[in-house]
């Protein structure tokens, strides 16, 4: 185990003995690569998962047809997809993104669907009563009503995204924080492993915070009702 001081001096050293610190350009390239991969995978998972989940929750028929397949694919661990992903996709980039995308997509979809189911029937009845059509109920009731669950899903999605990203990067790829950790292990440069882990912690925390900030700005009604804001 590397000592804390060894790790820290390596991390902030202008001339790092193990070759990785905040002064080396590779460090930022690794961080950037990982962030980019997660961003693409998370973006895709959100763009596809939210509408898909809304549809699953809103249309009984669609759910009856699609959900069983979804439920069989969902429990397959992201790691089990690695060999197939490498065979299916060309290059090093797409398999890693695919591995990251998959569990994020499942988390987003499932939570969005549960969000639609969580909406109290009385809101929908009230909207019908006030003259709203089905499409308007979808926009004015279903979407905002599911939003708290959707953002829970996005938080989980971000978490499992980073989780599978690191797994993917350890197996394929020549950049990224997962790669840093794994190469640190193979090259017996233990401080590098710790730097990779701490950096993952930091970027993971920042990305979750970003999701939370977007969530609270979209759900002022919730912030205020839970007494999290100024209540004005």
């Amino acid at each position, binding site marked *: 185990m590397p000592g804390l001081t060894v790790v820290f001096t390596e991390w902030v050293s202008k001339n790092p003995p193990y070759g990785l610190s905040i002064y080396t350009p590779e460090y930022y390239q690794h961080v950037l690569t990982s962030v980019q991969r997660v961003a693409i995978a998370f973006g895709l998972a959100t763009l596809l998962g939210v509408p898909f989940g809304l549809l699953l929750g809103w249309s009984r028929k669609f759910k009856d047809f699609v959900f069983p397949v979804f439920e069989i694919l969902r429990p397959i661990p992201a790691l089990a997809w690695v060999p197939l992903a490498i065979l299916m996709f060309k290059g090093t980039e797409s398999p890693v993104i695919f591995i990251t995308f998959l569990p994020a997509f499942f988390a987003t979809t499932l939570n969005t669907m549960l969000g639609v189911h969580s909406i*109290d029937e*009385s*809101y929908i*009845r*009230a*909207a*019908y*009563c*006030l*003259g*709203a*059509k089905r499409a*308007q109920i979808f926009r*004015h*009731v279903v979407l*905002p*009503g599911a*939003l708290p669950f959707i953002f829970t899903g996005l938080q989980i999605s971000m978490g499992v995204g980073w989780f599978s990203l690191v797994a993917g990067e350890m197996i394929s790829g020549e950049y990224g924080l997962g790669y840093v950790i794994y190469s640190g292990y193979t090259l017996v440069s233990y401080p590098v492993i710790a730097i990779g882990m701490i950096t993952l912690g930091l970027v993971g925390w920042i990305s979750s915070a970003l999701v939370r900030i977007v969530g609270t700005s979209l*759900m*002022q*009604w*919730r912030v*205020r*009702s839970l007494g999290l804001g100024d*209540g004005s």
Partner: protein
Amino acid sequence: MAEFTPATLKHPPQGEIRVDNVSHSYGVGKFAKEVVKDCGFTIEAGKLTVMIGPSGCGKSTLIRLIAGFEKPSKGSISIDGKPITGPGKDRLVVFQETALFPWMSAYNNTLYGPRARGEDTPEIHREAQSLVERVGLTAFRNKYPTQLSGGMQRRVELARAMINNPKVMILDEPFRGLDAMTKALMQEYYSALHEEFHQTAFFVTTDIDEAIFMADRLIIVSNIPTRVCAVVEVDVPRPRRLVDIYENDRANQIKMSALSMLHEEAMKSFVGGSKAASDFVDAYSKRTGKT
């Protein structure tokens, strides 16, 4: 409060609802349970009709039928002579449970009906503002429902219904769950609104005092399956105040006869374990000294 003269009305009262020999059951074949049986009554235009009966007796089913969410198994319901085929903006239901959208401010909730129908005009905004003021919530218009007290939420719901200018307001135990003080205030408040606007209203409750205070006409219904036991004209003059109604001989007389009618029904439902029914039995035995 403005006295009732035709000049205070925007339109002559509309929205006479006729419930004609309606029966309704859930389930099919031998599993069918009849909830409403041969019900017939009229909700007169411009009047406040109150329906009272033991809790769990199928009153809410009747409301769903009148609102058009469901079709009766037998019989017919019509409004101003036209049969009811589905929900419509001429009949608005204020539900037992609060159905304000928690993601919209009080003001946006009030405006929802016109907006959904694409009538987001300056006039409707003016009307919304005056309604919000009328229900005393101008200072709270930008608050979300969860930031408001139970009574305030109820008032927003009234405003949200009234802005659509429905021919008939249907209120399903609207003040249930409010504390006694707020409930009394809301009763006086709604009664005053009715005296001002003379909007046709159908009000369902399990509270005898509330029923008599509000009603122009009282419909007493039976335990499940719901049948009409009696129709009583509550000829107590308006405007009414809660403090006066307790002293009013006519009101007390109606209350006594209503209670004795309800007592029998309540006993049946009491055997089934209904809380509201046991309240009736209590109230009745306190009045008469018998059980």
